[in-house]
């Protein structure tokens, strides 16, 4: 019945949007503070998915515990990447891209070697379904929205209210001024990578039970994140949120209505935005950094 399908599609949009926003926020945060595109972002999504698969599904670690450990560990890995790979090329997009691609290749293919070619499927963490306006929706999917919202909101609050958060925003807006005010740029950079990669890992973790853990899953989601930050504004957190909402809806509704061609439309939208308003549709609210 179409009414049910409509509700289903819309609820699904929220799930996708939540996921996309989570991923795009992490990416755009790193872009804003360090002024580079962390191409390895997708690899962290994948690592998060595998982490939850092994910790929760295989070894039976309690979910919350597994979640927190993975996010922190992978966030720390992000800091290591920043310190040893990105920091030496401070701000230079091309070299950072090269090492990020190399790193991604190593992690991706390494995962294939270590974990095998087959995708890993796992049971839902959160059982049960809820019915809303006649449509059934699994709690797992609902939790995607919940967890993503909590994390992104947490990030916004962190950036706006805490001292460290404001220091990061200062570093993002004007590096020299921030240094003059005593902000440690390298610490800000490392923190940005910690949060960004942690959020990527979290995204992988919440999507793995619904989708699967797969060596290449990061790539597909990374492509989406790229398109979102272009549409929303590179380095803009509100842009990532609005862009994520928009793309999530386009994907869900588009897939239901016309199937795959919706992806082509999405790509065309990206081109149009680049032509009309290259800084992004929603840029300039909290902090915008031209990359």
């Amino acid at each position, binding site marked *: 019945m179409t009414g049910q399908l409509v509700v289903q599609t819309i609820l699904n949009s929220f799930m996708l949007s939540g996921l996309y926003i989570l991923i795009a926020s992490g990416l755009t945060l790193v872009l804003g503070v360090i*002024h*580079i*595109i962390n191409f390895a972002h997708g690899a962290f999504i994948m690592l998060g998915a595998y982490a939850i698969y092994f910790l929760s599904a295989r070894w039976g670690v309690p979910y919350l515990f597994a979640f927190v450990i993975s996010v922190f560990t992978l966030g720390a890995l992000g800091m290591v990447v920043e310190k040893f*790979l990105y920091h*030496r*090329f401070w*701000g*230079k*997009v*091309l*070299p950072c*891209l*090269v*090492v990020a*691609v*190399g*790193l*991604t*290749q*190593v992690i*991706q*293919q*390494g995962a*294939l*070697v270590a974990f095998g070619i087959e995708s890993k499927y796992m049971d839902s963490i959160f059982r049960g379904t809820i019915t809303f306006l006649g449509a059934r929706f699994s709690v797992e999917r609902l939790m995607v929205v919940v967890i993503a919202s909590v994390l992104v909101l947490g990030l916004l609050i962190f950036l706006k209210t805490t001292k460290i958060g404001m220091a990061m925003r200062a570093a993002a807006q004007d590096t020299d001024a921030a240094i003059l005010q005593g902000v440690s740029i390298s610490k800000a950079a490392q923190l940005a990578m910690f949060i960004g990669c942690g959020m990527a890992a979290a995204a992988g973790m919440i999507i793995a039970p619904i989708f699967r853990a797969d060596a*290449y899953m990061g*790539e*597909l989601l*990374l*492509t989406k994140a*790229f*398109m979102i*930050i*272009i549409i929303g504004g*590179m380095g803009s957190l509100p842009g990532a949120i609005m862009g994520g909402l928009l793309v999530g809806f386009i994907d869900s509704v588009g897939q239901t209505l016309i*199937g*795959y*061609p919706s*992806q*082509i439309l999405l*790509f065309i939208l*990206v*081109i149009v935005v*680049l*032509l009309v308003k*290259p800084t992004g549709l929603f840029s300039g609210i909290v902090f915008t950094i*031209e*990359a």
Partner: protein
Amino acid sequence: MLRKNRQSTFGYLAVIVFLLLIPLWLKHQYYLHVLVIMFMFSIPALGLRLIWRTGHVSFAQAGFMAIGGYTSSILAKFLGFNSWLALILGGILTAIIAVAIGIPTLRLKSSYFFLVTYAMGEVIRLTFLYLWTPVFGGAIGITGVPRPDPIAIPGIFRLAFLTKGSFYYLVLFFLFVTVLVMHRIDKSRIGATLQAIRDAEDLAKAVGIPTMRHRVFAFATACFFAGIAGGFYAQYHSQVSPLSFTNIVSMEIFAFVVVGGGGHVLGPILGTIMLKGIGEGVRGVGPYEIIVSGILMMLVMIFMPEGMLGVPKAIAALFRKRIKTPESSLEVTSEPAARN
């Protein structure tokens, strides 16, 4: 000076002769196949290098190979075109699409541009995977792609493409043409203009250089050759499918250029041979080739931004204490992120 030129020309000729003679003694089909693959991927790698000389990076080379491959296959298989014509037309259509996508996107800064090409590569692949299945063949792609039509001079000789050896010569020919074109572009003022645009685009505009035109030209040329390589791929394997042209492949091609060195025309070829060769060395498990390539990319970027080609130069510099020309170095021409 003249003697040096004579020496290097002799050197190049010797190498070419050596390459031409290989199939005569290398009968092991598998190794011939590896060489064919190496030379084939060198072509889009050379294309990527050209794009790089304007300061942009493209992750869509595999996607454009796909366009070339599918186009020539459709023309040859379904519409009965002569396979050579189909191949050229495939390249031309790829270039046309490149121009169409390039015009709105090449004006962007390189960070935006490579994001767009990354998405582009995915969209192209997914288009061939999901759209127009009766023609594109979905996940299986197009099979039964005709082999290249035989070249014949009546009464004198006839070259039919039935053996690996014949394909070897064919890809070598394509590679040779590509190298020649790229070399000529490099040496001519067109190449100089491209480098000037990369060095200081605003200054280039200020002296009257139409920078977009040059960027589009470089992009279209690079994609034309990628399309030709894709068409060759289709004819060589007798099939073409979306699985062969993923973003992973684009990243591999990127690695070939980075590791080999973007400064000299031979760099990407060296990189392709090295990385594909290492892959074959540990053959049997595909991922290892890419892992090694990934590690090499990181090492090269950190220690040797000029790529492998920079090694002899670095050694020579140690002996002669000459000033290093940054023309081939990635570092000098990588722009800081806060570029306007």
